């Protein structure tokens, strides 16, 4: 009996290591894929930087006109850091422009994804984490450097802030992937996703805290957004963690809320994907 259990254990261990190896291979492929789009990366950095200047000047003007020089509790350095780190996080979380899955659903190519031994949610997630890793190096760092060159940025004072920020950025990417995947899955039912995509682009820019920190809104609305929608967890959360806008306990609480949203959205992806696969058969795909 003992030997049977031992063999079962060994097989299970091998399955897990195989799965880890598959996941990392897919992630590495995602990284390499984006590493080949060098022109697009440079173009993206340029655009993020121009918007960084724009948003930074506008928010600093808000702080200059606000009582005590504090705009919704952020000082000038915090606002500048918020903007420049936000321009980088926008690319790391890839808030906009991912319609790969929707296109494959529309053309029927998705059938090939379903034949693979890895569930689609897992394989797309792995590739997306690879992409995010690449963006962290090439899309986050350059705008931050430009920001640091032209503006006074905020230096974190607490030891835990930088590790917390990295964790928060990872959770933001996971939750953002979840939202994007769910949005793309709508194509199983609607096929034409132009309207919902436009709505997502517009609504997300405002609600994630890209155009202005969400604390500029009335407190009750801000709280409702944090707890009732995943949006603040996609961008505002890592930025608030980085600029230490709140006391340490709240700072950690923000990351906990993000973890809940990342888990919820990824679970929803799995559920919707299973429903969609049944639906795809009905369509004769």
């Amino acid at each position, binding site marked *: 009996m003992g030997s049977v259990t031992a063999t079962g254990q060994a097989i299970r261990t091998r399955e897990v290591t195989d799965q880890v190896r598959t996941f990392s291979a897919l992630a590495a492929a995602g990284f390499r894929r984006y590493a080949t*789009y060098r*022109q*697009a990366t440079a*173009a*993206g950095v*340029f*655009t993020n930087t*121009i*918007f960084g*200047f*724009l948003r930074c*000047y*506008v928010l*600093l*003007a*808000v*702080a*200059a*006109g*606000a009582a005590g020089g504090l*705009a*919704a509790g952020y000082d000038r350095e915090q606002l500048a850091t918020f903007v420049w780190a936000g321009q980088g996080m926008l690319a790391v979380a890839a808030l906009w422009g991912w319609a790969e899955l929707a296109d494959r659903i529309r053309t029927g190519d998705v059938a090939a994804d379903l034949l693979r031994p890895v569930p689609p949610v897992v394989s797309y997630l792995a590739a997306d984490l690879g992409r995010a890793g690449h963006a962290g190096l090439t899309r986050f760092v350059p705008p931050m450097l430009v920001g640091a060159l*032209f503006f006074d940025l905020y230096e974190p004072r607490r030891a835990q802030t930088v590790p917390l920020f990295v964790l928060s950025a990872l959770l933001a990417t996971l939750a953002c992937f979840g939202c994007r995947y769910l949005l793309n899955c709508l194509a199983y039912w609607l096929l*034409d996703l*132009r*309207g*919902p995509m*436009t*709505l997502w682009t*517009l*609504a997300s*820019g*405002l609600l994630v805290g890209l*155009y*202005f920190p969400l604390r*500029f*809104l009335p407190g009750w609305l801000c709280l409702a957004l944090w707890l009732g929608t995943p949006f603040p967890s996609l961008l505002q959360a890592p930025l608030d963690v980085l600029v230490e806008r709140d006391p340490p306990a709240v700072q950690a609480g923000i990351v906990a809320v993000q973890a809940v949203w990342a888990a919820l959205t990824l679970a929803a992806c799995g559920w919707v994907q299973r429903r969609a696969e049944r639906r795809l058969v009905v369509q004769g795909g």
Partner: protein
Amino acid sequence: MADQFRAYLHLLRGQARSQAAYRASFTTDLLSTATGIVFDLLTVVVLFRATRELGGFSLTEALVIVGLSASAFALADTSVGNIDLLGFYVRTGLLDAVLVRPLGVLPQLVLSNVPLRKLSRAGIAVAVLVAALWQAEIEWTPARAALTVLTPLAGAVFFGSIFVGSASLNFWWTDAGEVSKAFTYGGRDLTAYPITVYGAWFRAVFAFALGFGFVGYYPALALLGRADPLGLPPWVGWASPAVAVVAAAAAATVWRAGVRRYRSTGS
């Protein structure tokens, strides 16, 4: 000439008919585009929750600038905004099909996809402008009335030139899509705020050298009867048509050079 005009008219009518055919899609598109400008406005209003003035301007004054800039941008975006698909045409070689037809390349590309849904945006933008001017209690003169009509039109020509000029980058640099956005959508955001908020060098490059300052800010000063905190004389408020002409000429030059440079993918 008349034949060409008729051909363009046919293209436009075909577009309108095909878009109206999918009613549900058209309605969602119309609504989501309208949402866009509502959110832009909300952003300005929310910023003014945190501060009483922005760059020395009140909310009403800022909304006059937003109204001018948004109407100009929406008109340009509706009519030629779809030129930003040029990168796709160049990359796939689809531009070949356009080049062999006996009509202008630019009008064909522009008319082959006129997003009528964006008209909702233009409508709201004009309404905002009218409301902001009302709120600002302007002393109306015939000259100011003329300026109110002229400015969005000149601004539309200016933004149209920015759209065409920055899309032309795709002839040299096929992945330039993102760079164009810095000038088109970036330009829209830039012109929505008083240029006094920007840093000196940034203002010198974008507001003056590239001309974005003349789309909304200076005409708004002339309408509001305010002196320029940056020290330029009042007649600058009337400069936008001239700036638009210069921009259009520059865009036309870049576009022609680009078309001449175009090499097919050969597929």
